[in-house]
């Protein structure tokens, strides 16, 4: 999608640049001041404050006092904190692996022009409208081992795969629940992205393929998938950053349990700050989290080589 949009846009922009030079009616930088000040106050200044808080000890009652790097050395010898990276990585990885096919296929399908598509899509996107809190609460009630789905569908949940229906009792199934609920909640969103991407694939490609006698599967693997590469990267970056900050569902569904096996980094920060009142140590986690998400975004941008991809698209 983005690629074709881009071509059009590029043409427009090139034109505008060549005919530029008009000075009248251009806004001064003052126009940007209110928004950027407001944003900086709540997003950039806090980043500075959190860096400072990470060097203090604060319990929420007395005022913060300077402790130097004590929190940093404490956190980096905290096994739960270090383990939380592994858990976060696992959640992110599983999220990407499960959500991608579940949004790619329906997305491609919904990009078509079937008659029932609009109605089905409307239902399909309902999870998108629900708050994460509401979604987690509904699933918590549904997964009650004695009164929820595990009892009603005992044939399905009774086996070892679902830990006999005690889904929150083993690390594997607890992670499984979080992944599944994430999938339920987020797939529709990514479907929308794929739907947009698939719609932007030029019809002529399929026509040409059809003339060459390519079947549906070959069309999918040789046209649809390669053409959706940009879209896929977009979607995966979103899953990545979203997964790194999974919080609501952990708070409501597992609270980091069993043991500390679902204690993801962002949830652990919440526990440290707002349950144990070790705001200094929590700030260390916050700083690490902020640096980490920024780095991951940068690395993905770099590795995926968006700019290069764009140029390959130019030929179409």
């Amino acid at each position: 999608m983005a690629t074709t949009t881009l071509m059009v846009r590029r043409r427009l922009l090139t034109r505008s640049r060549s005919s530029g030079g008009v000075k009248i009616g251009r806004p001064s930088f003052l126009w940007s001041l209110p928004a950027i000040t407001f944003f900086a106050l709540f997003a950039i200044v806090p980043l500075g404050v959190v860096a400072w808080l990470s060097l203090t000890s604060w319990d929420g009652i007395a005022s913060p006092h300077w402790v130097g790097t004590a929190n940093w050395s404490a956190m980096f010898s905290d096994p739960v904190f270090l383990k939380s990276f592994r858990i976060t990585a696992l959640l992110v990885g599983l999220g990407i692996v499960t959500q991608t096919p579940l949004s790619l296929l329906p997305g491609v399908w919904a990009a078509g022009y079937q008659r029932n598509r609009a109605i089905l899509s409307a239902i399909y996107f309902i999870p998108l409208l629900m708050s994460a809190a509401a979604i987690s609460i509904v699933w918590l009630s549904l997964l009650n081992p004695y009164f929820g789905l595990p009892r009603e569908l005992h044939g399905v949940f009774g086996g070892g795969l679902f830990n006999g229906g005690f889904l929150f009792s083993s690390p594997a199934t607890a992670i499984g629940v979080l992944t599944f609920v994430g999938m339920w909640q987020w797939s529709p969103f990514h479907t929308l992205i794929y739907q947009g991407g698939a719609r932007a694939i030029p019809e002529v490609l399929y026509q040409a393929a059809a003339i060459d006698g390519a079947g549906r599967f070959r069309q999918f693997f040789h046209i649809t998938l390669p053409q959706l590469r940009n879209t896929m990267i977009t979607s995966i970056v979103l899953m990545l950053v979203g997964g790194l900050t999974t919080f609501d569902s952990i708070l409501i569904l597992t609270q980091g349990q069993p043991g500390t096996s679902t204690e993801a980094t962002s949830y652990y920060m919440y526990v440290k700050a707002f349950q144990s009142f070790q705001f200094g140590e929590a700030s260390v986690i916050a700083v690490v989290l902020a640096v980490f998400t920024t780095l991951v975004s940068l690395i993905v941008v770099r590795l995926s080589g968006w700019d290069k991809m764009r140029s390959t698209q130019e030929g179409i």
Partner: protein
Amino acid sequence: MPSGVASPPRIRLSTIVSKTFGEEESLTMMSSHRWLRRGAVTGAVAVAAGAALAVGGAGASGAKATASSSRPANQIQILAYGDAQNTVEKWAVQQYNNTAEGHKVKAILNTIPGANYQSKLQTIMSTSAAPDVFFNWGGGSIVQFQKAGLLMPLNSFFKQDPALKSSFLPSIMNAAKIGSNYYGIPMRGTQPVVLFYNKALLSQDGVPVPATWSQLLSDVSALKSKGVQVPIALGGGDQWPTLMWFEYLYDRIAGPNLVTNALNGSKSVWGTADSKKALGYIAQLIKAGAFGPDKSWDSVKFTAGQTAPMLINGIAAFELMGSWDYSTISSQGSTATGTAPPNGPGAAFVKAGKLGWAAFPSVPGGKGNNSDLAGNTENYYSVLATTRYPQAVADFLKIMYSPAFAKQELAIGNLTTTTNTPSLISGADATWLKWQYNLVNHAAHFQLSWDQAYPQTDTNAIHTAVANYFDSLSVSQFVSAMEGLKPAG
């Protein structure tokens, strides 16, 4: 757009990807990763500025309690633990608001639902949102506030109104005493932890009420052989219900001194033979499948109302829980939360006499007294030092010792601790309340729940330690976790 916390970065990046192409070209012709890097540098400068700002600002602001004049005019904020028992707190606030003082200064009741109560309280105590009067468990739950000068000693109230002190059992008043000052007025009831059971299920399966540890073990195997899936319901998903088993077994086996010493700063107690013996007993029960299949308890939450229906519907036979479980079970399945009187299957279960209760079994050979109790001594109202209307607060607190209030509490199954309580007990729940009153009255020692006795900063570590032990049975892990606590606060 998707909701909640995780969403913003998702959407934002989607737009980065699709919009970047346009931005980049029109603005700077940089490659996409380069603008991000430049952005990072710009951001870093802003961050540094922010840090400087914060450090500068911090010097000026101390942990000063909010000045009373900045508190809301003509109202006192009452904060209570939110659960099925709030009906009486609502009633008390209404009573007060109907008095002459109440017309001038209105009392407003706020509740914070159970699981979040303690952490929210800590968050707000030093802010302008601090309540004038707040629910607590006495002991370690208020020590930090007292140290920070946030609490008002109630001695002056007692001078003005001696009954505010003398109406309550002295032992109960002492549990909220720090140094020579009193900081709490009892406001609900005493809440010992007892063993609840499904009487109908036990008699149907021919299983006796356990008086000793070995009987409990044989009950468990008998129940399992009769097809009871979970002999003992446990809301392990909440972690703290697990703690009750530790509190009792440590008391029964090692005697009350072990925990008292630990609270006084001794770390070595956790590695003693007695400590390990208590842990061994717990392991015995877990291995016998008393709490259902291994770790199944982690999928069950008391706070989500999941254990009461287990007991009522015969999925479980026992539950070790604080006396508040009586009202939790009674209100299970009522059409409305907090409906009084309750009208659901839980109420029918209790009315039919199917709910039984017993003291924790004795452990022969242990150092603890069989009459020792664990649980919450009482719940208290404490007063913010900077309250704007001390007189209104004093008037509000008076209601706590009025017979009418005690009757309301007794009616929902709470055992008040006023000296005249025995004479007020009547009605359908009289058996339960009288039994409980005797229990408390004859207790050789009443151990305040560990998570209340320790300061709030240790609560999470205690909960994690006990939950981990139930899952892993690792003695060394438990011992070192407990040794890591800082009881001094």
